[in-house]
């Protein structure tokens, strides 16, 4: 078993090194006039997308490697079925709520993606592997159902949301780890929100409103900019005012997952699409992550409470 993992790791490293050479050594130079190969990152976008898929999987793999002995990594029959259910639910919900089938009301430039509660809840309830599969595969099938292309790095970003949501199982001291998570997420929320205040003219690239002639180019609204702070405040409130420890764990870790997963996806767009840091953070990360946190704080507790009740009832 160990030999297999070493092999996988070695091939990952080799692939990464190869792409690093192509992208950073060859990509840094401006192509000479009439050169046969043009390795500027813009041209290599298909390849660089897949590099980020490898990086994302490597992150998950690294965490797994460091905590291999933990019970959270066991995959039995139940986990296999839960993975499938989570991914299918996430695909169906994101398809139905993406604005083409049901028009979910949107508020002040923020499109609501309630489906995001699914990978967070499945990660929390059934562990990081189930969470990762739910997010990554569910997002992939959801995109396929809509008939649009694929952004594999966003699928992996979604996978990381579920993955991190399940990582609470890896820590023996739940309270302490939860507080650390809260501080880290709080710091990240404040830093990204600060970036917003420094770049208020940045366009909200995730907001499309064809009826009003807006194609991801209207200036980001104040609400979309500070939604992440509102979301953080909500999570904070859930953590300290509700005495239910399960709910608190689910919401706090879901928040960190949301921040980590979407940061991963939007930062990867810096390389893939050549966005600047403010464009990636303020234009993409904030309008996605902020509202997601609001869902994390409201829908995830509902699911956790309902699930606990069902479990008590059925005795499983």
């Amino acid at each position, binding site marked *: 078993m160990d030999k297999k993992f070493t092999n996988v790791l070695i091939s990952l490293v080799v692939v990464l090194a190869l792409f690093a050479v192509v992208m950073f050594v060859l990509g840094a130079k401006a192509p000479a006039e009439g050169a046969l190969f043009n390795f500027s990152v813009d041209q290599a976008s*298909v390849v660089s997308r897949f590099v980020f898929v490898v990086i994302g999987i490597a992150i998950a793999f690294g965490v797994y490697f460091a905590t291999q002995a933990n019970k959270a990594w066991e995959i*039995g029959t139940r986990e*296999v*079925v839960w*993975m499938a259910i989570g991914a*299918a*639910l996430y695909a169906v919900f994101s398809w139905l709520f993406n604005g083409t089938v049901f028009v979910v009301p949107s508020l002040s430039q923020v499109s609501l993606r309630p489906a995001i509660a699914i990978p967070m809840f499945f990660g929390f309830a059934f562990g990081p592997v189930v969470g990762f599969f739910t997010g990554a595969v569910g997002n992939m099938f959801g995109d396929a159902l809509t008939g649009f292309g694929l952004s594999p790095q966003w699928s992996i970003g979604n996978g990381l949301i579920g993955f991190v949501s399940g990582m609470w199982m890896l820590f023996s001291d739940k309270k302490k780890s939860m507080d650390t998570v809260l501080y880290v997420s709080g710091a990240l929320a404040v830093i990204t929100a600060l970036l917003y205040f420094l770049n208020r003219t940045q366009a909200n690239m995730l907001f499309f409103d064809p009826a009003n002639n807006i194609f991801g180019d209207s200036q980001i609204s104040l609400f979309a900019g500070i939604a992440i702070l509102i979301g953080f405040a909500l999570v904070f409130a859930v953590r300290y005012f509700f005495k239910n420890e399960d709910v608190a764990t689910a919401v706090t870790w879901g928040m960190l997952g949301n921040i980590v997963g979407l940061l991963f996806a939007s930062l990867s767009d810096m390389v893939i699409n050549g966005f600047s840091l403010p464009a990636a953070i303020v234009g993409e990360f904030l309008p996605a992550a902020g509202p997601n946190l609001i869902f994390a704080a409201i829908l995830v507790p509902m699911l956790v409470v309902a*699930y606990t009740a069902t479990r008590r009832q059925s005795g*499983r």
Partner: protein
Amino acid sequence: MLVAWRYRKRENSFIQSFDPRAWVIFYVCCLVSTLSFWDVRFLLPFLVIAMFVLLTSGVKWHEIRRAFLFIVGFVFFFAVLTFLTGRGGTEVYKQEHLIREFRASFSILGWTPVLKVTVERAFFAVSQLVRVTSIAVMTILIPYSLNPAYYGITFKGLGLPDKFAYAMDLTMRFIPTFGRDFQLTMDAQRARGYELEKISGGIIAQVRKLGPIFVPVTIHAIIGSEDIIDAMDLRAFGVGPRTWLDVLTYQTRDRVLIAVGVLILSASIVIGFMGFGAFWVPEYLIKIFS
């Protein structure tokens, strides 16, 4: 109860005559290649491939009509909007060459609708239409042409471990079922006076009102999973290395299809690296209208 995709065996189907693994590999190669181009000259071959696959798939029009009209209509709608407004394409072209400007004879609150038809806008809209249509057509066909009995062995054959291959299999089977469950729950809640279309209030109130849809569908799925888990456990799932009921073997034609797919993909990547394939407008049109 599971709802199935509309697969059936089709004798005269071109894509169904291949090994599902070969077909999936070919699909992924085409998908990735299409995504690496914005040049309509390079995109057209992919539309031709997609159309060929569609017309030889043996899927009857009445089977595919709803899904097809929905997706193609949606794609067309967005292409028209791109054309009318010219937004969305500004990342790939800097300069526009005006063909004709239509100015409305009326104005609404001091705003006069102006439609600027430029060479770049028109070509961007066409490129977008071709690009997304070819992807969409190939994608719609998958559930119609992939035998559900082969889902698991297909993913296993593509290199996934047993458990993940089986999870992918179940995912594909659950999607139509949960779609139906969602609709049922929606109807049941509507009968109780719930209105998704009329959600009002602040953002928190709006999100809370999604609960009556979200929670029952999710919890129902989790409870329902117990039956499937029991059935799998009773058949000793995951105890030893798995064998599959159906065995897939590559024939010569499957190898050819994979080779063609890989060839298309590597050619696309090389072309991309050589700097071709970015958004393109014919030179002579620019000359005429500049």
